[in-house]
């Protein structure tokens, strides 16, 4: 078939990583490169030790060849995430995080744990954050109705996780409802 059944209902986490990897990130290059035209735009010039902005996929590629150091984005540090976690556990709504924080943090922590300060502690906080938010989305499911359901500050990976269940639930609620006179 043109589209395998596993891809029909949702995107896969790797596809979401591919999308997130198009975001720009700062690196400290260890090699020089002239400004080069890519399909997504022109990047460079790379002049060590000056910082440069490149897409995450490029940073990952260079990092795996030990040709750059990756600078963590402004939100990927213990202070910022710990503050969000505190918010998450004390307040009712979802705390405000970058839309693709889950994908980006996974990619960066996998490839460049040596460039990111407190990488191990960050992993713990991210895991706690994930669990706190998951619990909230499960509770939120009780408020689902057939018309519209707002999820402020819900993130890309979380949407993907709950998609099949939420969509199916809403479809059932729609079926249960009948316009007066439609019977």
């Amino acid at each position: 078939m043109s589209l395998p059944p596993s891809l029909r209902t949702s995107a896969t986490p790797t596809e979401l990583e591919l999308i997130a990897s198009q975001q720009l990130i700062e690196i400290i290059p260890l090699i020089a490169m002239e400004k080069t035209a890519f399909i997504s735009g022109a990047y460079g010039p790379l002049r060590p030790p000056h910082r440069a902005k490149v897409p995450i996929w490029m940073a990952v590629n260079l990092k795996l060849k030990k040709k750059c150091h990756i600078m963590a984005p402004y939100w990927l540090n213990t202070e910022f995430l710990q503050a969000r976690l505190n918010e998450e556990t004390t307040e009712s709504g979802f705390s405000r995080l970058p839309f693709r924080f889950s994908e980006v943090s996974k990619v960066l922590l996998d490839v460049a744990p040596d460039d990111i300060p407190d990488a191990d502690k960050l992993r713990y906080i991210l895991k706690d954050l994930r669990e706190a938010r998951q619990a909230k989305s499960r509770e939120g499911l009780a408020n689902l109705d057939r018309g519209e359901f707002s999820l402020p500050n819900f993130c890309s990976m979380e949407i993907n996780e709950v998609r099949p269940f939420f969509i199916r639930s809403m479809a059932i609620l729609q079926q249960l409802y009948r316009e007066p006179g439609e019977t």
Partner: protein
Amino acid sequence: MAPPPHELEDEETPLQKLMRHWMNERHAPDILPAQEELLASLLDHIRRQSEAVQLLRGEPSTSEEDHIRIMLVQTEVERVKFIVRSYVRTRLFKIEKFARFIMTNPEIQARITTAERAHASRHANLTDKHFHFSVLQSLPETQSHLDDTPIFMPPMVTQPDESVPVFVHALRECGPINFPDGSSLNMTPGYISLMPFASAKALLNRGDVELV
């Protein structure tokens, strides 16, 4: 001078556009309007980048720096190819699924490319013929149709179901959106909501929202 970050995000590159349309297509129950020009320009870009790589490779004295450059350009070409392929395949899947419906509906025909129309027509004909020769010809006349619309039963021709809920991510200020049950909603950029595809369709076609 570099523009401030929020302006950078406003300006979508052709690749970002395609990625947005790719995900929209993946999540939408219906076939969305074809993006022929965008696709053509990206395919053209892929071809030019590949040619440039071939040219660079031909040069005898490639430094380490050039090697890495070539490798990065090739990596990107593969990424874009993957997205293009996945996008086209998603459309193909829907076209085969709704082939019979497409042939009877001029509105949906206007949304797809000539090649996609031709494929839908061939696919519908082939399956019709196959069903006819394998089963239908030996059934009584009243049972040998593929497009019956019996009461209390879903129609035999598969149609896109617009009531399927989708996750909507607002890109611009939009609203108020009116829902069939009388409620309405205003969305600010970044707003996330789960709503039936029928309610999100107009916003999606205007590019005010994306599906996530």
